[in-house]
């Protein structure tokens, strides 16, 4: 039983990342009608916002310590971050340690700017182009973005740990009446899940309860009619693109302590998030979230040794297998609308 609860938690955690990326992806589909293969790259850029902030905070000057030597036997150059001088080593150290949470504030403006410039500078010229062209151009963009990151940060993963105060685990078992220590879960993963829930909730509330959101939703359903009403739907869609970029970016920032970011993490998530979006149903926000969590949980269960022993290799293919089954039984995914991206 506790094993199952743990796998559900794992699944929800994985699902959070899938859902956040897929949400932005389906939002862009729904509003702009654009297949954005660069969406994974936005997730990656978010993660590298955290890395960049860390680098900025660690910007140092060198002093020579004659008493110690480096690996070549030369006097050791000691690096001291400037912020140690500005804020004192304690505050400075704390800032570096808390760089991932701080990076949220850092990433929001950056991702908004990236999102806006991407939409205005490139995507808007592709609204009425065939989907194949959209795929090619956004795929090209994704390659360019990740190669730029690789140029500056290399190909290896870069460790970006959570603040020491948030490392450690939370004992669920006690809460549910199990033996202490039987169901423990890392704090940061719980934070990630809560964070995802808040973002998803906020986005849904925004779309449901604000006038802006209502117009956008109406536009998703019938762009032309809304356009005829004299509403500048394009401007709103541009903003939605920026929001989607921001959601992907924040998902990336928060993901860094879970797995060290590397330049191709976006591609790793891209295909999966496409599967999630399609399984959820094209153009359905709720579907994307539901599919994200569903696939996350199923993936977790399929990785259990008991399951793998029964069906060898199931952990390798579970997501795709489920996608096939769902698409064959429900033609438009879980909650897809008729006629969206079907021709």
């Amino acid at each position, binding site marked *: 039983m506790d*094993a199952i609860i743990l796998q559900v938690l*794992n699944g929800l955690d994985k699902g959070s990342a899938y859902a956040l990326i897929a949400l932005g992806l389906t939002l862009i589909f729904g509003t702009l009608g654009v297949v954005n293969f660069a969406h994974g790259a936005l997730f990656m850029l978010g993660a590298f916002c955290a890395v960049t902030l860390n680098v900025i905070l660690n910007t140092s000057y060198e002093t020579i310590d004659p008493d110690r030597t480096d690996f070549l036997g030369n006097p050791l150059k000691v690096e001291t971050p400037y912020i140690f001088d500005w804020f004192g080593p304690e505050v400075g150290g704390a800032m570096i340690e808390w760089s991932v949470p701080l990076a949220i504030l850092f990433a929001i403006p950056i991702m908004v700017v990236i999102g806006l410039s991407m939409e205005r500078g490139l995507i808007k010229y592709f609204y009425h182009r065939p989907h194949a062209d959209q795929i090619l151009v956004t795929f090209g963009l994704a390659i360019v973005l990740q190669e730029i990151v690789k140029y500056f940060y290399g190909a290896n*993963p870069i460790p970006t740990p959570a603040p020491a105060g948030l490392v450690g685990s939370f004992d669920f078992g006690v809460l549910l009446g199990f033996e202490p220590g*039987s169901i423990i879960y890392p704090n940061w993963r719980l934070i990630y899940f809560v964070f995802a829930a808040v973002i998803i909730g906020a986005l849904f509330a925004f779309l449901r309860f604000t006038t802006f959101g209502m117009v956008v939703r109406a536009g998703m359903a019938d762009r032309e009619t809304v356009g005829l009403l004299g509403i500048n739907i394009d401007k709103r869609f541009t903003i939605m693109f920026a929001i989607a970029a921001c959601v992907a970016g924040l998902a990336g920032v928060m993901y860094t302590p879970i797995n060290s970011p590397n330049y191709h993490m976006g591609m790793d998530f891209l295909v999966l998030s496409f599967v999630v979006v399609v399984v959820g149903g094209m153009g359905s926000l709720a579907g994307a979230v539901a599919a994200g969590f569903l696939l996350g949980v199923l993936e977790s269960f399929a990785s259990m040794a008991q399951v793998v022993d029964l069906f060898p290799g199931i952990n390798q293919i579970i997501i795709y297998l489920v996608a096939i089954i769902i698409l064959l039984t429900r033609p438009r995914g879980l909650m897809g609308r008729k006629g969206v991206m079907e021709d």
Partner: protein
Amino acid sequence: MSEIGKAASRRSVLKGSLAAGAAIAMPTIFTSQAKAAFLNDPGAASTVTLGFNVPQSGPYADEGADELRAYLLAVEHLNGEGDGGMMNTFSSKALKGNGILGKKVEYVTGDTQTKSDAARASAKSMIEKDGAIMITGGSSSGVAVAVQALCQEAGVIFMAGLTHSNDTTGKDKKANGFRHFFNSYMSGAALAPVLKNAYGTDRKAYHLTADYNWGYTTEEAVRTSTESMGWETVEAVKTPLAQTDFSSYITPVLQSDADVLVLNHYGGNMVNSLTNAVQFGLRDRVANGKNFEIIVPLYSRLMAKGAGANVKGIFGSTNWHWSLQDEASKAFVQSFGTKYGFPPSQAAHTCYVQALLYADAVERGGSFNPCSVVEALEGFEFDGMGNGPTLYRAEDHQCFKDVLVVKGKENPSSEFDLLEIVEVTPVAQVTYAPDHPQFAGGQLGTCNPGA
């Protein structure tokens, strides 16, 4: 960036012997039968071309970049530039710093992409287009085996880079291929006694294994050697290569009665699985009244860097480490560090050594003919390359040398100082019979000179 190649630039000499034929306007047709005694024979040319086939894109690009740095250093040293590095400490004195057999060493580079197909395409273009006489490099066993087979078919020498699977010199061994790097079996054999001392003989191990060839051989090697000293393997689970989040594989470990976790992962898999394992508090866990321990059979400094503080106190094995204090290692670190500003990785080391070993074998054999090189390398005993006395065994073309058991350092003094050497396992302890079951099934075949 311009670290690569500046020194070797300014080549104005014409390439290859064909310059001589340039004056003749008459078409010359020659078929492969009519060619020289072996493929890509440099003949009377003043230069010889080596092919450095390393991952330049994909997840192992940084490791590939380090390999390339080492090769360029080796080329410098072979051509008599720089400080000579390990050529000064190498027990064989055949190399004179005037290139190989008096021919200046030139090179071509290619990108393996860590894919068998791409690596073979790249190697083929080096052989067919650039006339490379030897191919070396790579950062995964799949690629090594694939390129090794290609070189065997084509008829050039392959000096493997970083490849750790038993199969490279086991069931997929080839006469034209040579491996200096150690292998899964050696990792297991070297680790077992150290683990016994550190953690005792009564342990229950849980394996997470990357679901591909290298993972299988490593799991088998570590299992066999730990089980023979009394450990019990409670579970061995295979994880997909593409897995990035290992949480769903880690939580069952919490549920099991294991007290040791063995991560048969490399590269990004290793970084992520180790990070996740530590996240789930495995390092602070107490199981069966003992401290829970994690083991990473194959360590790489570059990857340890990706895992950050998570490697602290975790055992593993490695082929070589820059903190070794023998003269050869010191000379290499000095040479590499002066040129590039940071210490070399084990991948850089093995590639540098392979390049030198090849050049030396050509000098000693007196010919670039692959068969002559094979003969010179088979059974070759040498020292002064950073691993102590080493044997290139004739039966399987595997180097036998000491293996390092290392541990993640608790208080690293720099970003390179992540591992500390716990023990140098003597070569006798990691030597196995050529027909050992973990290596059975393959045949070397005969050397192929390609003509």
